[in-house]
């Protein structure tokens, strides 16, 4: 095999792609169609709650096109970080979508499911065996963090995906996975260079984001040969340039020359980026440097429940007195519910127009405009208590008296009735650490199934 062509449909399954670009990609006869389906960027909620941050109808739309095209070409589809956060409920969510597509479109899919969940006990044992380490600026892991976690997943490397393709999978659905792995799996199965395969995967996992103009909802074709790879966007209005492709290795990573992954790091120090044809870029020099195998673990714990109230204010005296008013509202809340201990709830008033975006990092935390946006937020152990605290803080703030007040009928402009919203469960990261293992293949067995299930 002299070259492998990989079609990256979209940056995250469910973000969409133009049919014309996808068809152009299919015309190049790709050997695999792949997509990353997740990220930890949307925050800990989705992992903790077991919900997808992408929309079911949008995911189905993308996956249906990928699966029907792949069956026509008789090539596999590989999807990683199923359902966004890639834990068991997310993987099941995506499996059910694929199942429905297979049933309705008359497809028969030999499917490899690769869960990425890690039992608490496994993490506790590793912690005691000194096999867990912190990431830069991250805390050390404690046993309490592990025990409090509602779910823990590992970012899988390419190894189990390679095994799934070796086993003849038409469809590989993996739990949480290292983003480049879904694109690198087929090349690694065929013995292509790991450095080039993973660097290509790193670019393709964001689809056309590395093109100009960039897009996370458009297709990109990667062509891997023995000593280089090329990337090319498939919509005529986009092109890759050496700078756009080089710059992509900066994206979301703390070091553009050294990108750590599950079994080593990508060393891109010697990469050379050159134009290839009208709209493509050729890359050479990417190297994979093996290191002791580590999985990145992600875990989330339930922190409480949240209620928020949205309001605006444009009275200049109110805005001038805002800090004292917020302090006064806090006092009234504490005074009105004396049985509540301070550590049983959090009451926040976010001020947009001052430091709503940057908080403690805002260099100019002053109101410069004629109005502010306010978010009154309560987080507590139950939704009922969060409701109570938010409602009381909201009504108190609405009618709070302050020096120089002219607008004695009310302080806040509420855009909605009802004014308060259940934001539901609040999760936070409990685990975001590295786990060192001896055998990366041992922990994540493949579950084989035929889709649609029950059809035989």
């Amino acid at each position, binding site marked *: 095999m002299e070259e492998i062509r990989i079609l990256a449909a979209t940056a995250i399954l469910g973000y969409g792609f133009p049919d014309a670009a996808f068809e152009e990609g299919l015309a190049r006869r790709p050997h695999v169609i792949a997509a990353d389906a997740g990220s*930890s*960027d*949307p*925050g*800990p*909620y989705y992992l903790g709650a077991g919900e997808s941050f992408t929309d079911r109808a949008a995911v189905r739309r993308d996956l249906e096109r990928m699966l029907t095209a792949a069956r026509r070409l008789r090539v596999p589809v590989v999807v990683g970080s199923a359902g966004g956060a890639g834990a068991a409920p997310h993987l099941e969510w995506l499996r059910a979508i694929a199942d429905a597509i297979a049933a309705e479109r008359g497809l028969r899919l030999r499917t490899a499911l690769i869960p990425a969940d890690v039992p608490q006990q496994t993490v506790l044992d590793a912690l005691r065996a000194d096999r867990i380490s912190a*990431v*830069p*600026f*991250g*805390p050390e892991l404690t046993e309490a963090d592990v025990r409090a976690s509602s779910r823990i997943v590992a970012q899988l490397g390419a190894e189990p995906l390679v095994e799934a393709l070796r086993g003849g999978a038409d469809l590989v659905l993996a739990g949480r996975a290292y983003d480049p792995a879904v694109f690198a799996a087929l090349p690694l199965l065929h013995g292509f260079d790991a450095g080039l395969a993973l660097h290509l995967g790193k670019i393709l996992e964001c689809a056309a984001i590395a093109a100009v103009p960039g897009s996370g909802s458009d297709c990109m074709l990667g062509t891997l040969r023995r000593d280089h790879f090329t990337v090319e966007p498939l919509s005529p209005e986009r092109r890759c340039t*050496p*700078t756009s492709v*080089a*710059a992509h*290795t*900066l*994206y*979301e*990573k*703390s*070091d*553009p*020359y050294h990108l750590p992954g599950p079994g080593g790091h990508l060393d891109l120090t010697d*990469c050379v*980026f050159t134009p290839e044809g009208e709209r493509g870029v050729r890359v050479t020099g990417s190297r994979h440097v093996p290191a002791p195998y580590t999985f990145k673990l992600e875990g989330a714990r339930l*922190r*409480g429940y949240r209620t928020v109230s949205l309001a605006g204010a444009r009275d200049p005296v109110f805005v001038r007195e805002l800090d004292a008013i917020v302090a006064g509202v806090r006092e009234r809340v504490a005074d009105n519910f004396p049985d509540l201990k301070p550590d049983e709830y*959090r009451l*926040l008033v*976010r001020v947009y127009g001052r*430091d*709503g*975006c*940057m*908080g*403690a*990092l805002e*260099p100019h935390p002053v109101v410069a405009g004629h109005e502010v946006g306010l978010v009154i937020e309560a*987080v507590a152990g139950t939704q009922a208590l969060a409701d109570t605290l938010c409602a009381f803080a909201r009504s108190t703030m609405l009618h709070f008296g302050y020096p120089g007040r002219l607008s004695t009928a009310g302080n806040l402009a509420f855009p909605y009735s009802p004014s308060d919203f259940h934001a539901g469960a*609040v*999760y*936070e*990261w409990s685990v*975001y650490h590295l786990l060192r293992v001896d055998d990366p293949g041992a922990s994540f067995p493949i579950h084989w199934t035929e889709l649609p299930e029950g059809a035989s």
Partner: protein
Amino acid sequence: MTEAQPLAALAALADVVRSKNAGPFELTLDVIFTTRGHYELVKRDRLINRQVVAELYGLPAADVGEPIFYDPARAVKLNLRRPLPSGSVGETDVYGAQQHGPLLTLLLPLPEEGTPAT
């Protein structure tokens, strides 16, 4: 760099100034300069350094990583400790995508006349 040299805000000298999470505990900021000449000047004289970034963000220098100069993209990468982990209660920017503002105002000297603008 002399007193008389004209200054310009980084926003006028760069094609890209952006921020994003690099995991839940770290913010990563990228500046891609418009011209090779300006990038080389900033790199040579280390005009963007830990101390400058720490002052812009009101952080101790220990919370700022050593800037990484990335020649292939005329880019400087900066890493900061997040004041609060992404998604924790009271945190303001889950994706970390709006933390680049202070960099836009950083004043830098313009390269001397005749510096190739590639």
